[in-house]
C-alpha cells in the first residue's frame, strides 16, 4: 500500500515535471540550444502568480492565461534579439551565453524578490482526496492535470498547426525545411517563445505546490535536464514519459535514500543514461 | 604466397538489412583491383568494414596474415591500410601540409612532427600540390582536394590503399591526371583497391575487377570478361536488357 502511495505521488509530480521539461526539450531539440534561463523563467512565472494572488487575489489557474502571452513575447524577443546572433556558433558559446543571461535574470530576481521562500496559500485550501489508504492533495492533482493539459496542448500545436509543423520540420532537417519555404529564423524565435511560455505557465503550478524562491531556479533546470535525457530531445511524448519516470524515481529514491538524496539519485540516473543510452528511453535521436 | 588482404565471408548488417553479405575476396600484393557495382551496392560499406569504421557482423578480415577484423580505424591505419574518402574531409582550419603531416605522423609512423612535415612536403610535391603547402585546406578547389586526399593516403605509408571514388566530380583532363598519379603510386609497390564508377578508369587501371550488387559479390575477373557477364549487366541495367543482350554477339 505504501508503494502505491509513493508511486502515485511520483506520477502526480511526474506530470508536473513533464510540463516543466517540455518547453526546454523543444528548444534543445529544435535550436540545439540549452536554455539555462529555463529554470529562472519558471521561477519568474511562479512569482508572477504569487504577486497576482497576493495583490489582486487572482487565482493561479487564471495567472496561467495571463502569463502565457507575456512569456511568449519575452522568449521571442530574447531569441530574435540575442540568441540569433550566435545560433550557428559552437555549443560552448550558446551555453555560455544563456548562462550569462541567466546570471543576470536570477540576480535581478534576487534583488527584487529577496531570497526568502514564499508560499502561495489558497484560501479556502483545496484539501485532500482520500481513496482508501491513499491520500492525494487536491492542489497537486489539479496542478498535475493542468500540467498534462498544457503539455497536450503543446503537442497538438506541434502536430496540427502549420507553425507547429514548420517547427518539427526545422527540427528534422533545417536545410530541407528552408528549401521548402520555411522561415527558419522566425521558426526559431517562435520555438524559443513557446519554450519560454511553457516555462512561464509551469510557474503558477509550481507556486501552488512548492515554496518559491529565486534560489530554486537551478533545481527545476536540473529536473528538465534529466527529463530530456530520459525522454529524448525535442519530443513532447518523450518529455511526458521522461517526466513520469523521473517523478516515480525521485519518489522512490526519497523513500529509500531520504528526500535529500532524491536529486542526487536523479542525477546519477542521468549520467547512467548518457553513458549507456544517450538517445533516451524512447530511442529517439537528438542533436549531439 | 599469403594474400595481402583476405576477406572471409564478411557480412555487415544494419538492423535487418545486410549491406554487405557473405563477401569473400583475396587481394595479392601489387594488384590494382577495381570494386564496382550500382549505387547502394555496399562498396563503401565494404571499405568501411576493412578499415574498421564498421565492425563486421560476421566473417573475418585478414591483412598480411593478421586478423584485423576487430581493429579500430586508427589501428587499421597504423597497420598499413590507407584510404581516401569519397566526400573529402580535410581538417579545415589546418594548412595543407599540416593535413598531410597528420597522416604521416599518426599512421605513417614518422618519428617526430618535424619529420612528418618533411615527408608531407614530399608527398605534396608528388601529387603536384607542393606550392600550396602553407595554404588553408579549405581554400582548395575540389580537384585539388582530391589530390590532397591522395597525398594523405600516401603519407599513411600504406601497403594497401583503398581509393573511394577519387574521380567523382572531376572533369576529363583532371581524371587523366588522377589516373597517372594512381599508376605512379602503384609503381611504388602499393597495392590498390579502387571503388569506381567510370569504366574507362577501371579498364585502363585494373588487372582485376570485383562486382558487388545488393551487398553480394556477383562477379570477379578481368575487366572485359566481367563487363560482359550477364549477371553484371542485369545488375546495372535490369533483367530485360540483360535478356536482350544475352544472345547478341560481342566484339
Amino acid at each position, binding site marked *: 500500500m505504501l508503494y502505491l502511495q509513493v508511486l502515485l505521488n511520483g506520477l502526480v509530480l511526474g506530470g508536473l515535471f513533464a510540463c516543466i521539461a517540455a518547453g526546454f526539450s523543444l528548444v*534543445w531539440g529544435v535550436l*540545439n540550444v*540549452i536554455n539555462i534561463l529555463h529554470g529562472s523563467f519558471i521561477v519568474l512565472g511562479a512569482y508572477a502568480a504569487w504577486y497576482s494572488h497576493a495583490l489582486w487575489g487572482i487565482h493561479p489557474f487564471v495567472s496561467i492565461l495571463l502569463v502565457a502571452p507575456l512569456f511568449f513575447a519575452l522568449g521571442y524577443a530574447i531569441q530574435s534579439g540575442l540568441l540569433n*546572433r*550566435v545560433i550557428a*556558433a*559552437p*555549443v*560552448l558559446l550558446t*551555453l*555560455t*551565453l544563456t*548562462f*550569462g*543571461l*541567466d*546570471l*543576470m535574470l*536570477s*540576480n*535581478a530576481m534576487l*534583488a527584487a524578490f529577496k531570497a526568502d521562500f514564499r508560499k502561495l496559500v489558497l484560501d479556502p485550501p483545496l484539501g485532500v482526496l482520500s481513496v482508501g489508504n491513499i491520500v492525494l492533495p487536491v492542489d497537486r492533482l489539479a496542478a498535475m492535470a493542468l500540467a498534462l493539459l498544457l503539455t497536450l496542448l503543446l503537442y497538438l500545436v506541434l502536430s496540427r498547426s502549420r507553425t507547429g509543423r514548420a517547427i518539427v520540420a526545422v527540427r528534422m532537417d533545417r536545410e530541407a525545411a528552408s528549401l521548402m519555404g520555411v522561415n527558419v529564423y522566425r521558426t526559431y524565435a517562435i520555438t524559443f517563445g513557446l519554450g519560454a511560455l511553457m516555462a512561464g505557465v509551469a510557474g503558477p503550478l509550481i507556486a501552488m505546490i512548492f515554496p518559491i524562491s529565486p534560489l530554486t531556479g537551478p533545481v527545476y533546470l*536540473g529536473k528538465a*535536464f534529466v527529463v530530456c*535525457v530520459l525522454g529524448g530531445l525535442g519530443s513532447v511524448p518523450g518529455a511526458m514519459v521522461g517526466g513520469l519516470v523521473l517523478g516515480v524515481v525521485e519518489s522512490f529514491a526519497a523513500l529509500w535514500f531520504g528526500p535529500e*538524496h532524491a536529486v*542526487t539519485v536523479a*542525477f*546519477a540516473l*542521468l*549520467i547512467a543514461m*548518457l*553513458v549507456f543510452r544517450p538517445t533516451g528511453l524512447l530511442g529517439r535521436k537528438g542533436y*549531439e | 604466397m599469403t594474400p595481402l588482404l583476405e576477406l572471409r565471408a564478411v557480412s555487415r548488417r544494419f538492423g535487418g538489412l545486410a549491406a554487405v553479405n557473405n563477401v569473400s575476396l583475396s587481394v595479392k600484393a601489387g594488384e590494382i583491383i577495381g570494386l564496382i557495382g550500382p549505387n547502394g551496392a555496399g562498396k563503401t560499406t565494404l571499405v568501411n568494414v576493412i*578499415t574498421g*569504421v564498421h565492425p563486421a557482423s560476421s566473417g573475418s578480415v585478414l591483412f598480411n596474415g593478421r586478423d584485423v577484423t576487430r581493429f*579500430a*580505424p*586508427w589501428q587499421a*591505419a*597504423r597497420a598499413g591500410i590507407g*584510404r581516401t*574518402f569519397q566526400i573529402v*574531409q580535410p*581538417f*579545415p*582550419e*589546418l594548412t595543407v*601540409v599540416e593535413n598531410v603531416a*597528420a*597522416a604521416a*605522423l*599518426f*599512421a605513417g609512423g614518422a618519428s*617526430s*612532427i*618535424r619529420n612528418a612535415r*618533411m615527408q608531407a*612536403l614530399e608527398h605534396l610535391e608528388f601529387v603536384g600540390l607542393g606550392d600550396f*603547402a602553407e595554404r588553408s585546406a579549405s581554400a582548395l578547389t575540389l580537384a585539388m582536394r582530391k589530390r590532397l586526399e591522395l597525398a594523405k593516403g600516401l603519407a599513411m605509408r600504406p601497403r594497401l590503399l583503398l581509393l573511394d571514388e577519387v574521380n567523382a566530380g572531376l572533369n576529363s583532363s583532371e581524371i587523366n591526371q588522377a589516373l597517372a598519379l594512381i599508376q605512379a603510386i602503384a609503381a611504388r609497390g602499393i597495392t590498390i583497391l579502387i571503388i569506381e564508377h567510370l569504366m574507362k578508369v577501371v579498364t585502363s587501371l585494373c588487372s582485376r575487377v570485383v562486382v558487388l550488387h545488393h551487398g553480394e559479390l556477383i562477379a570477379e575477373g578481368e575487366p572485359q570478361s566481367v563487363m560482359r557477364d550477364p549477371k553484371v549487366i542485369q545488375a546495372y541495367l535490369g533483367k530485360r536488357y540483360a535478356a536482350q543482350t544475352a544472345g547478341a554477339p560481342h566484339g
Partner: protein
Amino acid sequence: MSNPAMAALDTAARRDLGLACLLFALMALPPFLADTYILRLGTTMLMYAVLALSWNFIGGMAGYPSFATAAFFGLGAYAGGVAQKFGIGMWLAWGFAGLLALLFAAALGLALLRLRGHYFAIASLVVAEVLREIINSATDLTGGGMGLNLPLRTGQSVEQQADFFYWTMLGLAAVAMAATLAVQHGRLGFGLRCIQQNESAADMLGVNTTATKTSAFALSAVFTGIAGAIYASWVNYIEPPDVFDVLYSVKPIVMVLLGGAGSAFGPIIGAGVFLGLEEIVWRRFLEVHSGVLGLLIVLLVLFLPRGLAGIARRRARGHTP
C-alpha cells in the same frame, strides 16, 4: 632542402617559451613590491590561471566543452584536506590530490568522452553535483555539511603566509604553462587539434582518439586538483557548496574565451583581465555582482567570440598580403 615551413615550427616554440619566461619573471615580482591584499588578489588570479590553462587542454585543444572543472577542484580540495586530517604532510597531500584527480578523470573519461557536444557538457556539469552530494554525505570522513578544518600553519607571519601561497600558486601556474606549451608544440597537441577539427577523420588517419582525449582530460584534472588542495590549505576551511561551486567550472571557460582559445597565453591573459574587471565591479556593485558578471559574459559571447587574442590576430592578418 631547407624550407621556411620547417624553420617556422621551432621559431614558434622558441618564441612562446621566451614569452612565457618573461611573463613569469614579471609575475614573480609582486611579493617584493606589493601589500598582502594585492598578493591575495594575485594568488587568486594565479589559481584561476591554473584552472583556465587546465580547461584549455580539454575544452580549447580537444574541443570538448567540459564543465567538470569544479568537480576536479572540489575533489582536490577535499583530497588534500582529508589527507592532512590523517596526518599526511601538506606537500604530500597536495601531490596526492593531484594524483587522485588524475585517476578520477581518467576513469570518468572512459565513460564520458564517448559523448559529444551538449551531452558531454551536461554530464560533466552533473558530475560535480553528484560528487558534492557524496562528499556532503560522507560526514565522518569529510565533515559533510559542517565543513572541514585544515591544520593551521604555524611559525609564519601573515605576510610570510601571503608570500608563501603566492609563490606556490605561481609555481603551479608555471608548471601548467610549461605543460601547455609542451603539449601544444608536440604530438599530443597535434592529435588534439585534429580531433577538434574532425574526430572521425582523425581516427581514420591513425590518431588513437580515446587515449588522446583521455590524456587531455586527465591533464585538465591534475593541475586543477592540486590547485584545489592548495586553496584548501590557503583558506583553512572548506565546505561542499564552496569548492564544488559551478562558477569554478564557468569562470575558467569565460576566461579562456576572453583571452582567446588556441593560444597558450589566452587563458592567463583572460584570467588576469577577468579578475581585474571582477575586482572593480565587486567593489562598486556588490548586490548586483553576479548580474554584472552575467552581463560581461553576454557581451563577451556576442561581440568577442574569439577573445582578445582574436582581435590581435585579425589585426596581424590585416598586415600580411
